[in-house]
């Protein structure tokens, strides 16, 4: 299609471009500039060159934060994805009972993060429901959120609980897109349930899986509310993930420059991840034409 006027496409792009510029591009450029200054919001900024980056890298803070964030994301993405897939396959059946269970699983996703965090703080308390249940079974228990070894895993578990419903819904939609005839044909050929899943369901679910993986990866990288409410980054920094670390630098340590440097690094890192993921998604997408319609 040829535009009536050469500038029409740009005019149509303008609203979105303006929005992105004001709320994403300009703040990012400001952050990039601030990252060369030591600034506390109130007194005049001081130019320090690359000092902020040096300190972040030299103190091991950057690596520590990055590794914690990656570990947390790995757990959240794989567990919520696989659980969501298992639930979707198990619950992809007609009937009011299944509909109710599907609704119940999804409901966690709709609840606000703060409410979820408060609820789980109560459950995971050293004297909470979870510990009481473990004690009842004669198992050892601990202060799940108070111990540096378990706090991050506890947070990851809460996030998995919360977003699994989302993964399930995407997978359900994907499943319902797969024509019944394919399953029937495979069954006639003598394929059991596992082989039908492996060779019919899974290949056709690949786009849904890529979508779920991308969105939950982004979600897990943005983890903030749950940390702010449940652990405030502690104990001993064990739950200080990237976004929370940025928040802490700006609002607690009074270091806008240091936080800006982290923002720039975080942006670069996310950009890299996105590129990798897009590449994987393209490489792994089912070839056109194989997909029946």
């Amino acid at each position, binding site marked *: 299609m040829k535009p009536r006027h050469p500038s029409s496409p740009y005019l149509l792009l303008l609203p979105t471009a303006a929005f992105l510029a004001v709320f994403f591009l300009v*703040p990012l450029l*400001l*952050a990039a500039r*601030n990252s060369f200054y*030591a*600034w*506390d*919001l*109130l*007194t*005049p*900024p001081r130019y320090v060159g690359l000092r902020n980056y040096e*300190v972040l890298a030299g*103190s091991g803070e950057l690596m520590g934060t990055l590794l914690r964030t990656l570990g947390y994301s790995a757990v959240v993405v794989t567990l919520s994805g696989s659980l969501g897939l298992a639930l979707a396959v198990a619950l992809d059946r007609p009937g009011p009972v299944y509909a109710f269970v599907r609704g119940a699983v999804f409901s966690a996703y709709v609840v606000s993060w703060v409410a979820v965090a408060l609820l789980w703080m109560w459950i995971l308390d*050293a004297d909470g429901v979870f510990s009481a249940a473990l004690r009842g079974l004669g198992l050892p228990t601990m*202060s799940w*959120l*108070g*111990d*540096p070894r378990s706090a991050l895993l506890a947070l990851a578990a809460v996030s998995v609980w919360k977003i699994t419903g989302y993964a399930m819904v995407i997978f359900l939609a994907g499943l319902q897109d797969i024509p019944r005839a394919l399953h029937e044909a495979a069954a006639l050929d003598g394929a059991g349930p596992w082989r039908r899943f492996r060779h019919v369901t899974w290949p056709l679910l690949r786009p849904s899986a890529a979508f779920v993986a991308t969105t939950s990866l982004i979600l897990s990288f943005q983890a903030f509310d749950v940390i702010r409410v449940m*652990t*405030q*980054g*502690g*104990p*001993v*920094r064990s739950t200080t993930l990237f976004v929370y670390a940025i928040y802490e630098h*700006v*609002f*607690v*340590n*009074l*270091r806008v420059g240091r936080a800006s440097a982290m923002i720039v690094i975080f942006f670069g890192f996310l950009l890299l991840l996105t590129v990798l993921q897009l590449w994987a998604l393209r490489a792994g997408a089912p070839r056109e034409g194989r997909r029946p319609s």
Partner: protein
Amino acid sequence: MSGRARGAARSGASAACSRRDALRALAASIAAAASGATGCARRAPDGRIEASLWFAYGGKNREVLLSLIDQFHREQDRYRIDAVYQGDYFEALAKLRTALAARAAPALTHVVGEVVPYLAEAGVLEPLDRFLGAPGAGHADLDVVEALGQAGTFVGGGERPLVCLPFNRSTPIAYYNRDVFRELGLSPPSTWDELRAAAARLVVRDGVGTRRWGFECPIDWWFWAALVGQAGGELLGPDGAPAFGGEAGVRALRFWQTLVHEDRTMKPPPGRDYNAWQVTNTDFLSGRVAMIWTSTAFLRYLEENAGQAGAGKFEVGAAPLPRDVRSSVPTGGTMFVMPRGAAPAAQEAAFAFLRWMMQPSQANAWATRTGYMPVSRRGLEELTRSGYYAAHPNDRVAVDQLAHAAPWPWSPDLFRVQREAVQPRLEEAVLAQRDAAETLSEAVRVARER
């Protein structure tokens, strides 16, 4: 987000500047709309001059503050204080800094003591002297208890222009379960060694677990500062450079490590900041620990709840913190400050409210209903005279302890050093068992780096 300071620093490029101005105006209007605050003085529908007060309390303290504000409104018809809750101390401070940068700060708020030097040196606090009337009259007509006001809270605080007035002030004190102590024939420890021995006698083990801990205290900068002072150290050197008590700082940290890991008599409460404080309180109330250190601010709360808890009911005793080579406690809580930039009429209203709050009857109402300390000298005398302290010996502890209150160094870095260099490392040393000397020398290194 280029901000006021940078805009002012380079006002050359006019094109860039006008865009920056526009952004700034936008930020200011958003902040103002979000906070319902200030900028220009507003008049309430009933014709009173309004000033907004940002406060950072929940629970009981909030109730008492709001009831005092109501009383202020009943007693005069010229001013109205518009009180807005802004989250806990640290959240409120974050919002205050953002609002200051956007020039939308409230006429009145309160901040933790350690942050006052930073705000004052950044030039964002209104000097209060100019509201006091006659120059040279000093701070006298406010009649503040010296140790709790600016003069006593900061080294050299009396010689500086007055920028803060005491609001809810506290010191850490020891609370103990009187029933358990009586049963074991113990008296509250008055030295570190006695504390260690008492904790060992109080602990009740249950196989590998612990049924009752001897001692609990949040692993927090405030209590560590108390220990450093008791061990004879100073947090900052005379030149303001971070020293963290040197050898005394290490000894303070080792004392905790010994109690937690060697003696296993002290429970380090999980959670950060005020979560850990809350855990300490609930452990004490439920009888899981026999002795705690926390703020005098919780006195009323602990007394009331320990007395009501059914079978677990017990009597709460309060005692001064023990000494090592000397007695020493830091002061805590918050100071009232008036951020710069509010309209003169709003400032007038805010200061009228401040003056009213400093009067004996209001200061005492606040203190006796919450557990914080009375900040008015005449008020304190009145309480003593009326026999209040004879009837409430627990309330007396903090007031007597003021004789050993150590002033904070006046350093703009004090707050940042506390939050960034020290607090996370205390947790590391105690919970993850890092060597105390190594931890603190790292803290000094981080604190020096600007």
